[in-house]
């Protein structure tokens, strides 16, 4: 068997092995690259940075465990930033799986890193409600119609943070952090556009190309995949250097990401070269 035949008939498991190694080795070697926020991500950071203390930010965590590696770094960075700016954070989710992830975020970031913040005064977990875009359609006119209690079953009217909130227009910024439908698109269509509320987003890389057309008129900014998360983290570290010593998974993941991409590109190039060589051989064979 010639070299080209061997390459052409390569077992897909060998490719899997190469991809695995391209991720494992950079993780062990701690390969990191310098990240710099592009205008689409920087817009979100600048908006949060410009909000006066006490402004209300709605974080909608619309994702599940399968997209945690991509979305969670964005959520953590945003929660840290909002707390640094003394903003009021309202957690909610359009995905049932988002409820547990919200609890994890609150336990591991909000309550752990900002113990001085009081639940029900500085932040609240509204939890999950069924209805997808229908839910947004209701809460754009009356928030308390759907949210009678918070996630712990406390009457919404007894929470200090909920007193000034009537509907979605009561928020200064909505950030949809999602891995699919319903997600950022629904926030744009059912809240941002009809209510004139600034909507920003953080999404999986798969979703990003579908959402870029909404920027900048309908979408304030977008964190697309782990690259978007890394850019936001880099901007946070730039403005708040104390976060340099803390975990920044977005930036950490970009090292293995870049190496794996190079390996994939090499395989694509090899695949194309073998394809053209094979075609040229077939042509020669026909002529011969």
């Amino acid at each position, binding site marked *: 068997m010639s070299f080209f035949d061997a390459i052409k008939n390569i077992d897909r*498991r060998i490719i*899997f092995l190469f*991809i*695995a190694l391209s*991720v*494992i080795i950079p*993780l*062990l070697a*701690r390969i990191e690259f310098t990240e710099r926020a592009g205008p689409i991500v920087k817009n979100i950071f600048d908006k949060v940075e410009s909000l006066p203390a006490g402004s209300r930010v709605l974080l909608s965590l619309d994702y599940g465990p*399968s*997209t*945690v*590696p*991509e979305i969670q770094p964005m959520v953590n960075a945003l929660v840290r930033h909002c707390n640094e700016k003394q903003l009021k954070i309202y957690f909610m989710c359009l995905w*049932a*799986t988002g*409820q547990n992830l919200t609890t994890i975020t609150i336990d591991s970031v909000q309550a752990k890193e900002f113990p001085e913040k009081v639940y029900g005064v500085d932040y609240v977990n509204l*939890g*999950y*409600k*069924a209805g997808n*875009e*229908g839910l947004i*359609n209701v809460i754009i006119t009356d928030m308390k119609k*759907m949210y*009678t*209690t918070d*996630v712990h*079953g*406390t*009457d919404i009217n*007894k929470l200090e943070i909920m007193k000034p909130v009537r509907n979605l227009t009561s928020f200064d910024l909505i950030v949809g952090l999602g891995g699919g439908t319903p997600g950022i698109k629904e926030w*744009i*269509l*059912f809240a941002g*556009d*009809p209510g004139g509320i600034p909507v920003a987003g953080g999404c*999986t*890389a*798969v979703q*990003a*190309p579908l959402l870029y*057309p*909404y920027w900048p*008129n*309908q979408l304030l900014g977008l964190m*697309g*995949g*782990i*690259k978007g998360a890394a850019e936001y983290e880099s901007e946070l570290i730039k403005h708040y250097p104390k976060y340099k010593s803390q*975990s920044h*998974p977005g930036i*950490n*993941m970009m090292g*293995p*990401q870049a190496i*794996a*991409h190079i390996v*994939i590109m090499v395989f694509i190039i090899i695949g194309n070269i073998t394809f053209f060589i094979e075609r040229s051989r077939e042509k020669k064979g026909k002529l011969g």
Partner: protein
Amino acid sequence: MHISANIMVWFGAFLTLSILSFLYKDNVFYKFAEHLFVGVSAAYWMVIGIWGTLFPNLIAKIYPGGVRFVLPSLADRPPEYYYIIPAILGILLLMRLSRKLGWISRWPLAFIVGTTAGFNLVRYLRSDFIGQVRNTLIPLIVIKDGSFNFIGSFSNTVIIVGVLCGLIYFFFSKEHKGAFGVASRIGIWILMITFGAGFGYTVMARISLLVGRMQFLMGDWLGIINR
């Protein structure tokens, strides 16, 4: 190296490796993890639906006293009896489970289809049609701070040419010949570049998930790396 002593981390690692083992070939560990996932997901959605929506948004509205032991903060609210209508529609939807009465479920389904279509028609028309047309109405020559901005002008030109040529490619009432054919071919290139960008982003997403799992296995489980 600091191997985790948490049994849940070990179980998570076992499930991760079970799923990844499918890359080699189908096996009993993969099947076990897959079935466990389906079962747990179904139960999770049901529990969340009951405690997150059914109790606070329906039962507590119709009969607040009935939720005294689970949601005491809502027990003293005045009842809102018009919630009986969605409750009836919900019960009618469950008629699908009966062969004889299954046809009744079409009524609430028709209500859902009708309202969803109505809501979406307006919102999509406004945001996805008018909004997107407006996003394309941009100047070809961008002047920034009193001077010509090349990057801005180039970006806007790419957007406008890309949209027009992409639309021309899908215009089949005229033969794609001459200048129209050239625009159509540019449209194909634009589409191919878009698909390429989409593929690139998909690769990034999948690698991110792999990195996430490897970080879990090598960090949380084996303790080889710090997270």
